[in-house]
């Protein structure tokens, strides 16, 4: 049934615009959703300190209301869709008009934006609640909530934008909020460094955004409008030159890479962990980083045409996504900081989304965005819960065996991890599977459809699935298993309070069920009317502003294969950590975080007393090394080395170089050449004046000589010129 839907969509693109202006109140007034947190921002900023709960209550109330409105809007959208089909609701008003250019401000409500509203508001709401406890004794508590509200508002504003210019506004506001929040503890230089890095990296991408937007404005908007619908329609109808689209899509891709942490511009993301954990959750789950993915989804025709996604087997976007997902996964292996593990995991998952979009699996990408929001928020909040208890994020030094102290957190964390690892039947499984299906590159396994044969991307996706499962296993082990390695001088760590736990419960619940909203067609356990509901309501495949994409056919065999790969990854890690390391730990009565004779450590960090043990497992080492240690060891480390020494250094160096160039330019060109010229001409004048003064020797007869001689010279010259 849904296959038919997808195929039907591919053939016919409505020629008349599928945009309406009037609809259900909740859709027409969707702009209230961002407005409420924005007002709450102003309210908290100006009056927060005087409120009984220091402004937190205002933020929570506003976001809760927003959530309710979003939920109502979601229901309204479903009705709307059922009634008249996929007709986006657009309401805009002229913002300004200048030089013949019209700038409008408005909201575009369709399945995509409604879905985003829901995700953002729900994650934000829970993060708000969570934060009341987490940053409860922070000295800038009020201020934190103010910016949390603004952050939410900015993201909501962004997703509702009906034109690219407005998207830029939202995009930048999100960026600046993240700057403020990442740098929340600006007293420490690393924190402010991280904030700066985040903002500057995003700014680099913004160059692309600005140029891409401008190109679209002129090439597709006819030089008069930024309206996304009109621009998309123009592209879909083939009115836009291909060169312009290539330029625009490449430029916008740069923006996405910086915002959504794609490979080579991702380095700010792990650093951004410097911010408070709730902020990380918000950034990674619902706001900020998904903005890039959202933008691709929103302007999909640009990329679909510009990147030539249809009928190909490789393109820039998909490839960047694929590289990112593997690279991010590898990096997650070598992190000791629990948040960094999650951060790299986000990079990796964003890679999935971008790759999905790159291979034409629009719904899969958006669906993964949707599910990822819940389990990643779950994991971040969970890690925060743990960190809150031990006052550290270092898994190796300060954690271990936490399941004894924090059983509730442990459970939610496990759920989140399983969902992330993509194990049946949790949310991650469904969305990841759909992405793999979308690559259309598995001919061997019996899949059909899709926009091309992206075999390479499929393989990368599979590898990534294994990696994900493995590093999450490592993470869980290091955090919750083994013996506690932290400082017990202040007593044992204890379970977090309800304001932390309740959000965790809700999130983990969602992480379990979220996947069911888009069960693949042909999944026999439920009726057809329950399958692919998400894609049905969210994907604008029948609208006038969406390209004709092919939908792949789900495949049982692929699902099984992918699960198997994930299980192998998880299994290897489980074997390594839960079996071998645990056993060794038991033997040595120590809380270990890895095998002392790991391939990377074979030349002797291990203590002398362990030598025998090391030798004993020499053989084991060989075979498991192929699967686990090599991946975990040299490969991941190499990747990390490249990451820190090459890519990150490149970013840092770019900054340093700019400063250096600035210095040089200033010292040499400005002060030396230009100012030197100015001052020099002054000095020359001065010196000439000094020389000329010698004429006035003070001797009157010299003066007279000049008088007579000049008279003679002048007369002689003029005689020669004029009279002789």
């Amino acid at each position, binding site marked *: 049934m849904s296959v038919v839907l997808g195929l039907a969509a591919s053939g016919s693109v409505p020629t008349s615009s599928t945009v309406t202006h009037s609809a259900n109140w909740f859709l027409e007034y969707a702009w209230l959703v961002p407005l409420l947190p924005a007002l709450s921002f102003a309210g908290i900023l100006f009056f927060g300190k005087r409120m009984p709960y220091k402004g937190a209550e205002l933020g929570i109330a506003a976001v809760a209301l927003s959530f309710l409105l979003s939920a109502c809007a979601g229901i309204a959208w479903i009705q709307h869709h059922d009634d008249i089909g996929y007709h986006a609701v657009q309401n805009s008003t002229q913002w300004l008009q200048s030089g013949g250019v019209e700038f409008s401000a408005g909201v575009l409500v369709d399945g995509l934006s409604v879905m985003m509203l829901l995700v953002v508001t729900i994650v934000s709401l829970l993060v708000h609640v969570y934060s009341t406890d987490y940053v409860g004794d922070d000295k800038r508590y009020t201020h934190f909530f103010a910016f949390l509200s603004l952050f939410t508002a900015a993201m909501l504003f962004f997703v509702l934008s009906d034109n690219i210019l407005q998207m830029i506004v939202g995009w930048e506001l999100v960026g600046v909020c993240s700057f403020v929040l990442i740098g929340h503890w600006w007293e420490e230089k690393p924190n402010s460094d991280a904030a700066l890095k985040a903002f500057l990296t995003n700014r680099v991408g913004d160059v692309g955004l600005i140029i891409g937007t401008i190109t679209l404005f002129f090439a597709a908007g006819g030089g008069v409008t930024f309206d996304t619908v009109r621009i998309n329609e123009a592209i879909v109808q083939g009115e836009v030159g291909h060169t312009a689209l290539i330029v625009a899509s490449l430029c916008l891709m740069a923006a996405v890479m910086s915002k959504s942490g794609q490979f080579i511009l991702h380095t700010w993301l792990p650093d951004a962990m410097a911010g408070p954990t709730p902020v990380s959750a918000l950034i990674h789950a619902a706001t900020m980083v998904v903005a890039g993915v959202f933008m691709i989804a929103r302007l999909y025709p640009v990329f679909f045409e510009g990147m030539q996604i249809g009928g190909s087997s490789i393109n820039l976007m998909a490839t960047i996504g694929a590289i990112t997902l593997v690279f991010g996964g590898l990096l997650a292996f070598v992190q000791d900081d629990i948040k960094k593990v999650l951060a790299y995991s986000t990079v990796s998952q964003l890679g999935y989304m971008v790759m999905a979009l790159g291979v034409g699996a629009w719904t899969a990408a958006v669906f993964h965005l949707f599910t990822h929001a819940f389990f990643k928020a779950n994991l971040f909040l969970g890690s925060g819960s743990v960190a809150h208890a031990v006052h550290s994020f270092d898994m190796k030094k300060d954690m271990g065996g936490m399941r004894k102290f924090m059983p509730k957190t442990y459970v939610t964390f496990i759920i989140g991890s399983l969902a992330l690892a993509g194990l049946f039947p949790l949310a991650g499984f469904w969305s990841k599977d759909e992405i793999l299906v979308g690559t259309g590159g598995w001919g061997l396994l019996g899949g059909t459809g899709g926009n091309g044969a992206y075999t390479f991307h499929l393989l990368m996706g599979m590898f990534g699935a294994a990696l994900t499962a493995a590093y999450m296993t490592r993470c869980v082990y290091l955090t919750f298993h083994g013996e506690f390695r932290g400082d017990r001088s202040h007593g044992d760590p204890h379970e977090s309070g309800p304001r932390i736990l309740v959000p965790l419960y809700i999130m983990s619940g969602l992480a379990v069920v979220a996947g069911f909203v888009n069960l693949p067609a042909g999944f026999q356990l439920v009726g057809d009317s329950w399958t692919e509901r998400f894609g049905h309501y969210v994907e604008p495949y029948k609208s006038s502003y969406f390209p004709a994409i092919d939908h792949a056919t789900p495949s049982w065999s692929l699902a099984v294969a992918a699960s198997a790969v994930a299980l192998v990854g998880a299994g290897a890690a489980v074997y390594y950590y839960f079996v071998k390391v645990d056993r060794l730990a038991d033997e040595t009565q120590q809380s270990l975080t890895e095998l002392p004779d790991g391939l990377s450590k074979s030349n002797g960090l291990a203590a002398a007393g362990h030598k025998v043990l090391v030798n004993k497992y020499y053989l084991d080492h060989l075979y498991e090394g192929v699967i686990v240690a090599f991946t975990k060891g040299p490969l991941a480390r190499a990747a990390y080395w490249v990451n820190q020494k090459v890519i990150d250094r490149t970013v840092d160096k770019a900054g340093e170089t700019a400063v250096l160039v600035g210095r040089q330019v200033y010292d040499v060109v400005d002060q030396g050449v230009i100012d030197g010229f100015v001052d020099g001409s002054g000095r020359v004048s001065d010196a000439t004046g000094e020389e000329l*003064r010698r004429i*006035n*020797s*003070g*001797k*009157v*007869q010299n003066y007279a*000589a000049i008088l007579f001689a000049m008279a003679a010279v002048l007369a002689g010259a003029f005689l020669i010129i004029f009279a002789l």
Partner: protein
Amino acid sequence: MLLNQFLLLSAMLFCIGVYGVLARKNGVLVLMSIELILNAVNINLVAFGALTDDVGGEVFALFTIAVAAAEVGIGLAIVLLIYRNRRSIDLSEIDLMKG
């Protein structure tokens, strides 16, 4: 008679006068050289007057003589004043102000 014989004589006198004012150190001698110059001009004026048969030249010459007399008068007065103050009328020593 050629007009030029007078004019060249006058030019000669003029230039000798110029030499005098430039080369002499004694203020009084410089004033004398000035007289040479002014007389040279007078020869010119009168010669031209004769050439064009116009009375203007002579009148001009007369005015010049009168003015020259006045100039010599005050010139000597200034030289005297300087002599009184400096006990010297060596022009090459008078360079309190320069630059």
